[in-house]
């Protein structure tokens, strides 16, 4: 019983730590969009190109957060069952 609780607790802590990875993309995307607005303000004719590049850049940046999120989900739902099954 105690081992089960320790495994579940450690998995939850690990999942929480993995979600720290979700903070960075939010800040990075915001910064990139801010700079893109500045660029469009300087050169309004390049709006299409800037939007397209920024869109792909934001998607790439966001993947880091998704990786962390997937690790957190695996720690929450998959790993505890694997270890508890071995007890």
């Amino acid at each position, binding site marked *: 019983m105690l081992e089960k609780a320790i495994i579940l607790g450690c998995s939850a802590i690990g999942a929480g730590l993995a979600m720290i990875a979700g903070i960075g*993309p939010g800040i990075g995307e915001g910064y990139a969009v*801010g700079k893109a*607005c500045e660029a469009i*303000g300087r050169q309004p004719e390049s709006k*299409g190109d800037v939007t397209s590049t920024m869109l792909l850049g934001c*998607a790439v940046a966001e993947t880091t957060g*998704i990786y962390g999120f997937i690790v957190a989900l695996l720690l929450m739902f998959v790993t505890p069952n694997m270890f508890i099954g071995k007890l």
Partner: protein
Amino acid sequence: MKISAAVKKETGHIALGVAALTAVMLAIFWIFGAMDASVLWGALLGSGYAVLNFFLLGITVQKAAGMEKEGKAKSLIQFSYSLRMLALFGVAVLGFVLSCFHWAAVIIPMIFPRVTILMMGFRKPKGKEGKAEDGT
């Protein structure tokens, strides 16, 4: 709000890439003998959300690009990111909790847009970048 041509074009590229990679993933499931209805439903849910997430990002980026105040654009994209992550959490939990979805088939397509962008980068002709930098 009118959706810009850039967003439509990139979403189309991503949708094609995600569809192709999902087909590869399903083939791998089939080769390993793990193919069943839950894998198909899971792949549909995962890849569908991956494309929808990119499309929503595109709409937000388009809206933010039209804003004059830098701070407002920043807040909008951060708010959108939070909401999309929350929706992703909902989709992933559905995939894990409901037995009609295979959890791996839901989770794996979430990283397909990144792989597609990587492949698009390899495919892009080198001359185009040089032209853009020269301004010609």
